């Protein structure tokens, strides 16, 4: 099973690639809405991509109030 750090790293890489932001500009505690410049609709798109990438199901109510990559990674890690 992969580590929490690996999960976090994969999220950052996926988000950087999809939203065309340099990977080195993203840090674990960033507010991804601000850093990626996305609205809630694009956040849903990111959620779907993460579900496919990690082969998990993430009920959106579990992500309520989550806006940083580190907490997002913790939620995903809990379902791996």
């Amino acid at each position, binding site marked *: 099973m992969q580590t929490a750090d690996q999960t976090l790293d994969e999220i950052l890489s996926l988000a950087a690639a999809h939203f065309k932001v340099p990977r080195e500009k993203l840090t674990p505690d960033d507010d991804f809405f601000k850093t990626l410049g996305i*609205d*809630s*609709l694009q*956040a*849903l*798109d990111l*959620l*779907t*991509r993460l*579900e*496919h990438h990690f082969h998990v*199901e993430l*009920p*959106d*109510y579990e992500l*309520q109030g989550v806006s940083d990559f580190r907490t997002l990674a913790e939620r995903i890690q809990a379902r791996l």
Partner: protein
Amino acid sequence: MNNHHGKALSWEWNDGVIELALHREPCNEIGSLALQELEEFASALQDLRYESHSLIVYSRQKPGFCAGADLRELYESSRRMEKSAATAGVRDFLERIHRVMNIIDAAPLTTIAAVHGVTFGGGFELALVCDLIIADKMARFCFPELRLGLVPGFGGIPRLKRDLGNAVVRDLLLTGRSFNATKAQQIGLVSQVVAEGQALRAARGTAAQIGKFDRRTAIAAKEFIKPIPYEELRREIDIFCELFAQPAVEAGLKKFAESTDAQPYLP
């Protein structure tokens, strides 16, 4: 009218296949304009059905298939009226959209929803009237109505019950959570999941296959396996209108309509 270009939607007929395209910004919200044009389409469908074997419904809007009812329009129109008049207006809207949905549901041709992105609320309900749902892998489905103090009002509950086990229906309705195309296929809502941007292509391929079959046989098969739950659809309108009169709905609509987020879909 074989081809029509409207403000919210357009349709084209070609070689037995009708393609209904939704193209109203931002994500095909169904308000009074879309309803009027859907009624025009339903009327045209009565003529086109004799020379057609398939209908494909899809969206040209990038964010998705359809984000559901136009809640901002609903909020703006209802806040200017007495509660009883607003509820009467909602009932009239629901009666009209149900007539359209029922016509598409019962149409004597094979209907395919080719969906991508946001397929929420009334958009999900529009997909559910179709015989087949073909989903882009990035499609996302949701019945968010309970967040507003409502239930789905365009026929969603009876049609979900028709297609799925009751335990799954309860999960989707009572949690209001969204789910992806893979999950939708696992629970039996979606018949094909395809790569990003490929839903319409796959729907056209499916329609071409459907066109090879004898129409009378296909119609008989559809009538046998896809009953329309008219009684429950009527009950759904009543429940929706009863709930709409409650104060919680006004507060929920206000919160949605006044959200500063460009697309306040996240719960």
